């Protein structure tokens, strides 16, 4: 093997090793940061895991929003309007489009008592746009999505 080939071989081996390591790391990172989405039915029915980062979604039940008078703690109930509903607790500022009767997504963990501790509350971005997860779930309750919405 002449020196030029040897250099080239070193480079190739170096690259392969680097690529292998990075692919492994990437896949590990991906695996750890996937948030499964569960509709109310799955949360109530016990399909959703307890103590794991997940996403859940539903409509905010009318009259269920309860703000603490001292802090920013808030609780509300998410429902699919066909029998399944579960309570959510959150502390912080709710998005502008958070409203009773509207579809939202919460990210966080489900605890042993079936209460969802949300770290993030995501609302629809405007009057007509519906997160795809919800659009499917509540086809019967929702207006057809308006294709003209632009949200960046």
């Amino acid at each position, binding site marked *: 093997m002449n020196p030029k080939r040897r250099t080239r071989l070193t480079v190739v081996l170096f690259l392969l090793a680097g690529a292998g390591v990075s692919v492994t790391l990437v896949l590990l990172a991906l695996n750890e*940061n996937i948030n499964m989405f569960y509709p109310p039915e799955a949360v109530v029915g016990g399909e959703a895991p307890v103590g794991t980062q997940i996403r859940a979604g539903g409509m905010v039940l009318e009259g269920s929003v309860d703000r603490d008078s001292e802090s920013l703690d808030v609780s509300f109930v998410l429902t699919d309007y066909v029998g399944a509903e579960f309570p959510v607790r959150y502390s912080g500022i709710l998005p*502008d489009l958070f409203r009773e009767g509207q579809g939202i997504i919460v990210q966080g963990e489900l605890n042993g008592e079936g209460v969802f501790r949300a770290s993030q509350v995501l609302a629809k971005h405007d009057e007509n746009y*519906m997160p795809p997860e919800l659009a499917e779930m509540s086809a019967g309750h929702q207006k057809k999505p308006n294709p003209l919405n632009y949200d960046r």
Partner: protein
Amino acid sequence: MIVELGHLALVVAFCLSLLVAVFGLGGAHRARAGLMGAVPALVAGQFVFLGLSFGVLTHAFLVDDFSVAYVTANSNTMLPWYYKFSAVWGAHEGSFLLWILIMSGWTLAVAVKGRELPPAFQARVLGVMGLLNLGFIAFLLFTSNPFERLVPMTPGEGADLNPLLQDFGLIVHPPMLYMGYVGFSVAFAFAVAALLSGRLDAAWARWSRPWSNVAWAFLTLGITLGSWWAYYELGWGGWWFWDPVENASFMPWLAGTALIHSLAVSEKRGTFKSWTLLLAITTFSLSLLGAFIVRSGVLTSVHAFAVDPTRGLFILIFLALVVGGSLALYAMRTATIRSRASYTLASREAFLLLNNILLVISMALVLLGTLYPLAYELFTGGAKISVGVPYFNAGFVPLMLLLSAALGIAPVLNWKRTPAGRLLGRLGWVAAMSLLLGVGLPLVLADAVSWQVMLTLVLAFWILGSHGADLVRRLRRGTPPLAYVGMQVAHMGFAVALIGVAVTSALSVEKDLRMAPGDTLELGDLSFRFVGVERVSGPNYLADQGEFAVVESGRRYSLRPQKRNYLARRNVMTEAAIDPGLTRDVYLSLGEPLEDGAWAVRIQVKPFVRWIWLGGLLMSLGGVLAVLDSRYRRLRVKRDARAAAGAAATV
């Protein structure tokens, strides 16, 4: 009637693009000078008619013509005129019309500026661009006609523009972004033309390089503006979310960055040629993929266009044709390319290769994270997932740090090989200084700083130090060429952005709390007193405006964040109040009203956040400076000389 003219102009432009494609590609293939000679005129016609079409739509917005469905959906009589103007590209149909107009603008630029190219080559480039334009205009005409009428049920009032988009940022962000996206079609067309003609020499790289640089500069500017807009307009102070829509623009940027570096090697050393071609194809394909992601609504995204499968399918097929066709051509032609690659590890070639590898891996990482939810849903039969932000950070940040480490060495390197003694002699003290500053400054200025921040700062100083030292050395020898200055500015911009990202991520303070009028919050050397809320009204909204008296190290000022209620759509919007500064932003936003006149309030102090965008601006400026280099002007001089000689001959 005027509206129909706009539609008609679009149809004419469609036919003209068809002619551009046929005359350009066919003429070059058959070597018919007559056919090829007609192409620039056709391109000009295409631009004129698209401009007319765009003008008609703009006119419809400005005069509130609600018989046009698109105007009704995105405008309102109360909207200020400048937002009526920018509302033209505020939603799908109009923004795509803008995209096409820009595309034809780039085509025209190639027709005018590319006169120094061999005629057959230029005809092929224009032909390929005509083909692309044909697809885009067909998409607009058949799936998203902006001129569709609401007749006879013409409404008296429009639904208004989404309030998030009623902002200066939206006036400038999409056009800049599109200039970049579409600009890479030029590099793509050059690559395809080169493959078609079999002309894959260093000259090809030199012709293609300025175009790619300009497109890259625009894309950089567009992304920077987008990040800035999201920061102040979404109301909560985030500047990057790894949202699919952002990733859609970031992937072509990463590939494009690799492309402009790889082009340098192809031009100067005649190597990496097939790799550069592949990057040119990839970059534009990613732009198209971005269009697909944004326009089809396939991805889980809190902010994305809503779903319309016909559009998605059209773009998907178009994407398949463009990517598949160009890659097939690539596979057929590149087997013949031979490069004599002889360089050592300590050479510019090797480091530019490393740059390319790191950027392409980063791009693949973003691509995987962006498309994974879609693939997961397809293969599991409908299960929905989302990929969390930590995934992107975990992969992207280390890669960028590696890139930074390598970037610091770049200015010292020679082509082919660099003596080890010189590397050590020139970089040793820079390394020592950056280590000292990067670790020392945070220890002195901030209380508790993580090792990640120190590492990032060390690397940023490393880049600034080695580039600065090299700049001084070059200046001593006389005025350096603009291409060199551009490289310096862009690389320093990267370091500046790096500092911004590191400091703002690590040292930002964020506080969500309940405040009643009269309440005070102390935050470091800042104090905020909530004075109260009053009702104010804008042209098309009512707002609750909070007043906060801020005292910052003795300086007093007021911040007035608003909670706006837009009348037409009844949308609620958070309008943050920001006191901007080079070393820190104070950022205040109102959450929701609580009982007894109290409000949920978010108070943030974001140190060095502006450096992120400052870095972006510098990078973009660097890209432009590099293009202004006299090396590219010399081509023009030669052409002018030729033209003068030709004129003399005819006389």
